């Protein structure tokens, strides 16, 4: 009798263990895909940031980004892809659960870095080409040699079924460098 009860306990333990493992595997796969989606969105946003150049500066041989055109496009892209309203709060059909934040850094031939948070200019300061820029949230490092746009997105990850595995935020950065064709 004792042997049978022991076997039953061991069987139940295996069932619980495997069930937990399956849930973990499915959630981990979903988490990896969510990270990839945020990374791809950062890529697209940094490209969008570098899409518009200031015509006057360009006529003088300088690559200067026209942020007044780029920022609305980046916001439009992020809100559409993540299903957010204009205040960056998720809509009903969104996978995400809380307000997102994003930062854009513009480095161009003006030798000034412009920092935007959620589409609003928060800082501008002089930088020297050839120096290393470290993104404060992700510690992403890049030597800025050419006109570059860096985008960072921070978003809260929806809670998992296995709460002890919760990873509260996804933060991803991506840079687009406007290389000289010569």
């Amino acid at each position, binding site marked *: 009798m004792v042997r049978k009860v022991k076997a039953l306990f061991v069987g139940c333990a295996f*069932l619980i263990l*495997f069930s937990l493992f*399956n849930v973990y595997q499915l959630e981990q*796969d979903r988490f990896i895909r969510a990270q990839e989606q945020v990374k791809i969105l950062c890529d*697209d946003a940094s*490209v969008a940031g570098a*899409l*518009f150049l200031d015509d006057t500066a360009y006529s003088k041989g300088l690559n200067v980004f026209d942020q007044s055109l780029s920022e609305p496009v980046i916001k439009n*892209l992020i809100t*559409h892809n993540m299903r957010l309203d204009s205040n960056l709060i998720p809509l009903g059909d969104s996978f995400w659960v809380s307000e997102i934040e994003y930062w854009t850094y513009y480095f161009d031939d003006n030798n000034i870095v412009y920092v935007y948070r959620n589409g609003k200019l928060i800082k501008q300061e002089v930088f020297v080409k050839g120096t290393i820029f470290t993104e404060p949230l992700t510690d992403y490092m890049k030597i800025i040699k050419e006109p570059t746009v860096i985008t960072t997105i921070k978003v809260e990850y929806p809670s998992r079924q296995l709460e002890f595995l919760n990873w509260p935020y996804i933060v991803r950065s991506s840079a687009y460098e406007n290389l000289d064709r010569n």
Partner: protein
Amino acid sequence: MKDLIALCAVFLLLMTFPVQYALNTKNHYTISIVQKHVHNAKELSRLEGYFTDTIKNNLVDNISSDTGLDGSEILIEATEMSQRKNRGSLLYYKVRVPLKKIIATNQFWGISDDDNQSVYIIENYAVSEWLGK
């Protein structure tokens, strides 16, 4: 003999988990492949301002050859030539790919084949780089 029968039953029950693990891995791989090909197609369409027939056909062919799915089962809804977008406007694309098996031993748990399938959907936007006419 009694122990052997019990062992067979338990073995069948426990075998469902490793098989489910393999199926989860396969489905995740299929989704990753789809994401990769959709991403590549999106990058090409940005230059054109819309999803050309060539881009769409290549996308279907690539997914189909890498995942073994029938091309007719992959559905693409995207910005057409008549809606061609200029630089800075958003292109739309939606790709549906069937996942034909979600639970590995569905018959064992009493789940029919019809209930045991799903559709993976990628619905997103990208910024057009097309400079216009």
